């Protein structure tokens, strides 16, 4: 296994260099450059514009710029943004990443949970109305025009029903007197999420060693409830709970939209895998033993059908780093997706390449993690 991880890591490094090179040259190939915007100011003489180009290094030939970039890249320096000059690209990523991570990781978790649960249920009732209805609804949302769904949700839940906030990720009138900034709250929320997931993971491991179903249930649900209560108490006593709650409130609409858009993917993967598995002999055996339907479905079929879904989920987690341009625009959630768009529109090459490289690294790592997970989850797979 270690040999395999080492070999894959080396491949990832090589792949990363090829990826950075391709991304860099695609960006360079676009017409114009960042300094073109100064063309629109006739007050700037060609000499001044030349100085601005020098300041951004745009006076040098593209190949020399590429060499500079790679030299800095080897030193883990993603350069300085043109658009936010003189801010470092890593600073901008540090500012935007927590917002994106919290929103898209939560949405991915929710979407996969919904997909997994629906998928196993409709597979069990294949050909019946529930199967057809869920598949139809899922496909409709899967193919719907994203901005349309976002606008519809905003109109329904924020404007008409007035149940949820209209837009943005925080309420300015509340936050204007906040003693901390939103990024700190986002980081704490992320930590809370990780803490709960970690506690759940430990509980699942402990439960796997327990013998009775009751003990397992108590361990898993007890740990989950306890960790949520501890988190709520800590948030309540921190004095910033109100701000955390405000962010969570603002997340509901984008998460709802993202879940509606994407749950069909995981639902159909789960359904198809389940349909293959229910034909297996061990499922017939389990049924013949007189086990209840729910136990056969959840413990014998769904667990074995989980493998492709987990692979998809882990790789999706890697992609959560990149955020989503449309969702972030529609909900004024300025994360990584909007930063891509901004960098692309203004041809801020260091920022754009930096963002793509950053996402690329996580996606490549996610692939590696998925491969390793396979070995753990499926005893038949050995590297």
């Amino acid at each position: 296994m270690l040999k395999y991880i080492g070999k894959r890591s080396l491949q990832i490094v090589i792949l990363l260099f090829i990826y950075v090179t391709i991304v860099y040259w695609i960006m360079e190939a676009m017409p114009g450059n960042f300094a073109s915007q100064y063309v629109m100011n006739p007050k700037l003489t060609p000499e001044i514009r030349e100085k601005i180009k020098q300041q951004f290094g745009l006076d040098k030939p593209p190949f020399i710029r590429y060499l500079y970039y790679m030299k800095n890249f080897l030193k883990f320096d993603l350069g300085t943004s043109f658009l936010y000059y003189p801010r470092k690209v890593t600073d901008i990523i540090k500012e935007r990443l927590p917002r994106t991570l919290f929103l898209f990781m939560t949405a991915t978790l929710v979407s996969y949970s919904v997909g997994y649960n629906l998928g196993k249920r409709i597979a069990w009732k294949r050909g019946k109305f529930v199967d057809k209805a869920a598949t139809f609804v899922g496909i409709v949302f899967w193919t719907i025009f994203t901005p349309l769904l976002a606008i519809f949700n905003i109109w329904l839940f924020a404007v008409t029903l007035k149940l949820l906030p209209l837009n943005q990720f925080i309420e300015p009138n509340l936050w204007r007197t906040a003693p901390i900034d939103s990024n700190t709250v986002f980081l704490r929320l992320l930590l809370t999420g990780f803490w709960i997931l970690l506690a759940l993971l430990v509980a699942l491991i402990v439960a796997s060693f327990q013998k009775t179903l009751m003990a397992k249930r108590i361990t898993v649900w007890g740990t989950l409830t306890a960790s949520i209560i501890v988190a709520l108490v800590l948030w309540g006593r921190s004095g910033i709970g109100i701000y955390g709650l405000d962010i969570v409130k603002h997340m509901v609409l984008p998460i709802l939209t993202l879940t509606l858009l994407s749950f069909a993917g995981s639902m159909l993967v789960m359904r198809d895998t389940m349909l293959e598995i229910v034909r297996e002999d061990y499922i017939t055996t389990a049924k013949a033993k007189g086990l209840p339907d729910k136990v056969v479905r959840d413990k014998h079929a769904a667990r074995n059908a989980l493998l492709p879904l987990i692979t998809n989920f882990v790789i999706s987690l890697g992609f959560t780093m990149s955020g989503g341009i449309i969702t972030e625009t529609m909900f004024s959630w300025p994360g990584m997706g909007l930063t891509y768009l901004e960098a692309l529109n203004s041809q801020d090459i260091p920022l754009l390449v930096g963002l793509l490289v950053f996402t690329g690294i996580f996606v490549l790592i996610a692939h590696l993690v998925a491969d390793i997970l396979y070995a753990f989850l499926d005893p038949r797979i050995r590297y």
Partner: protein
Amino acid sequence: MKKLFILFMVLVVVSIFGAKVINWAIYEEPKTLNIWNHLGPNATVWNDYVMAGKYGSLYGYSDVRFDWIPALAADMPKKYKEGEYWVYEIPLRQDVKWSDGTPFTADDVVFTINTVLKLIKDYGLGGNWASSYDPDFVEKAEKVDDYTVKIYFKKLGLAKVEFGALMGPIIQKKFWEPKVEEALKSENPLQTLYSYEPEDPGTGAFVLKKWEKGAFVENTALPDYYDRGFVEVLYKNGAVELKNENTGFHWVGYGEPKGDVELKVETGPFVDSIIYRIYKEKSVAITAMINGDVSFIFNPLGLQKGELDQLRGKPGIKITSSPSNGFRYVAFNMRRYPMNIKEFRQAIALLVDRDFICNRILAGQAIPVSTLVPPGNVFWYNKDVKTLGEGMSYGERRKKAIELLKKAGFKWIVEPKIKGDKIVRKGKGLIGPDGRKIEEIELLAPGPGYDPMRATTAIFIEKWANELGIPIKANLVDFNYIVQRVWEENFNYDMYMLGWGLTIFPDYLADFFHSKRMGPGDFNTPGYNNPEFDEVADKFLEATDIEEARKLAFKLQEMLAEDLPYLVLFTTPIYEAYRVDQIVFPYEETLDGLQGQLGLPAAVKTVE
């Protein structure tokens, strides 16, 4: 928890209503609020909106009429010659205070001008700093006493002196002197200056309270703002009166302050805080306005048709329309054949019926213009300049165009034939005066995604030209591609269509067409080279008297309308909307709209 949250929200709402907080929407987050960076590489209109009026200048414009009036100065400058330099001796207002309570003095003016000049000359400080304090014109500033400064100029010119250096921003010496010294010792002084947090004091009515990145910026009003109660009165006879009874400041100019008052604007601030909410999606900002979450939306382009339709008739919302200071145009590359032939350009101008485009095709969304100064810039606009073909019918325009082309020596393989308002035979195979067939002429224009108005107009120009056998081909491309072809590839184009946003003082007439601006990457993109024009343009740039400059600007507009290096097409009005049940502006219609005045933060009031 829920009850606690509701209680907290109630307290927040109570405090908001008690505190006169207004919410405005912006579509982009400011790139920076650091003044060095804002006037350097990171200038955006969104920074401007949020930094509204933080930094004063010696002179400014009056509201609506744009008279040139004192701002931090107490009176008009005294001009005289001292050795080789022209000196502007300027008395300063003695009642001005920085937001930290420090009095504003001549030291601040001298520090600003001399520091900026040093940074331009020694370190290449560029951007708007270099255009405000142009080292080719400004030599230095000197303090006469605490409230008088002398600014030395190498040469004169309204654009670079009155409308340039004297309108440049003034920063505080006490805050910036140690910071500049520290920056100069660093490896990259400009980068260090650009990196400072925007904590410096200003002379405006608001200070930055909070910038929650990605969500909002809040500016809070100074409770003891020195200029509270300042009144600007514009009289119909042209006179301007500025007074502040609290501080005793009083100034009168442009005639006797008597008779009917055209406009009176009082400075507050009348609100305690302004929150600039960042909405990345325009339709959501519009919904927020309908919902009452925001009372005004900033947009340099104004509201588009769909947005207007959405807002029209909604209770509490008023839509306003203002002229904009800009135009869309077609440039001819006069370095190339046949665009270098005046009659050819005039023939194209005759074919382009701007009234038809604006009123029929664009359904009144655009206003036809005939000169490079849009009608909204009333003082500098020459209303006597007429467009070619004005008042002519469809057929008459075409007959005249054919006549002009023939006069210049053009021929056709198949000559177009016009009968009444109909083209009975389309032209084919246009042959130039040199006997060669005219090959395809490319008209570069932005695609419909970027600007549907220009894309549509380009297609109509192609159609109308092709009817007469003029082989124009509209090529709808990316904006950056046009910029690359025109500026980066050394004027590699036949014709292109773009637009300009303009300044009040029309020195762009010289920037765009003086022969000394014909070099690669410069702004005389058509390559217009007319010694007579250059002479008038030079006189205009050197003029020190505003009336003389106006006459010269009129003359320049006439020459350009005749020679047509640019075919000016249309301008667009700026539509805006605000909630009349939440705020009151002292006026609504002005050049470039309320957004052009940055929302008048010091004069806006809340509805009681």
